[in-house]
């Protein structure tokens, strides 16, 4: 039976864990065989499959998936696409994908050293704000859900805190970026 997007809420931690376990066990062997045939190793296969799950999650929470496209087709399609892209970038082999993928695969930009340093700083000196903005922007949780999870009195209070966090983080990031000379 084909599972479609509408049946799974990936924002729910438990549903996401079950879905990821299920897909990993069922679909990773296909991706592994494909990557092996294309000259990759186990680590390569694991990397592209992890990236594909992350992209699927981001598309799902942003409501950018068509319900007609089954999760499973999406995952294997995107993993293959990512492998072709990686192979080209690594210049291991000049290959092109002749496979039709009925969706956009976003660019996968690696973090810069400055971004990694800034994130490390925020994880240690601004964790609460980072978690709040993560729930809002990355998980795209509704403000009502967020206010409950973070103990705010309501959506308005959560929104006020969001602004305070952005202001605080902006100052931290600005100060550090200028210190590192990393500002256009």
């Amino acid at each position, binding site marked *: 039976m084909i599972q479609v997007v509408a049946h799974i809420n990936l924002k729910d931690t438990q549903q*996401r*864990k079950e879905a*990821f*376990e299920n897909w*990993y*066990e069922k679909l*990773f*062997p296909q991706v*592994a*065989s494909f990557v*092996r045939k294309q000259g990759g*190793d*186990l680590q390569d296969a*694991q990397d592209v499959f*992890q990236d594909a*799950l*992350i992209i699927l*999650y981001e598309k799902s929470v942003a409501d950018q998936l068509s319900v007609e496209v089954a999760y499973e087709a999406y995952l294997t399609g995107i993993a293959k696409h990512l492998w072709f892209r990686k192979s080209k970038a690594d210049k291991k082999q000049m290959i092109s994908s002749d496979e039709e993928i009925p969706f956009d695969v976003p660019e996968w930009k690696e*973090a810069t050293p400055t*971004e*990694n340093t*800034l*994130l490390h700083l*925020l*994880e240690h000196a601004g964790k609460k704000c*980072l978690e709040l*903005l*993560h729930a809002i*922007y*990355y*998980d795209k949780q509704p403000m009502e859900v967020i206010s409950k999870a973070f103990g705010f009195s309501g959506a308005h209070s959560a929104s006020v805190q969001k*602004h305070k966090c*952005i*202001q605080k*983080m*902006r100052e931290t*990031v*600005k100060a550090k*970026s200028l210190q590192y000379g990393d*500002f*256009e």
Partner: protein
Amino acid sequence: METSNNEIAKTEAYLLGELKTDEALLFEARTLIDPVLKMNVFFQKRIHSLVQLYGRKKLRTEIKSIEHQLFHNPQKADFKKHIHSIFNIS
């Protein structure tokens, strides 16, 4: 503070692509004549990038934990055996 909140909200809407075309153009024009606004937009955009980076890092940790369980759970030994056979790992 109110002005600051308005600016943050407007910048957020701009970065998330929620402004109408004419509003977005007007906002961009304002950044050209207001260097402080331009800098604030730059750093607010960087916050969005950092939050995405954090989200991906957290999600990857979740996935790696699932991966680790699948490869190390004795009840899933067939899965590991199958994958290792694909890569000729003994």
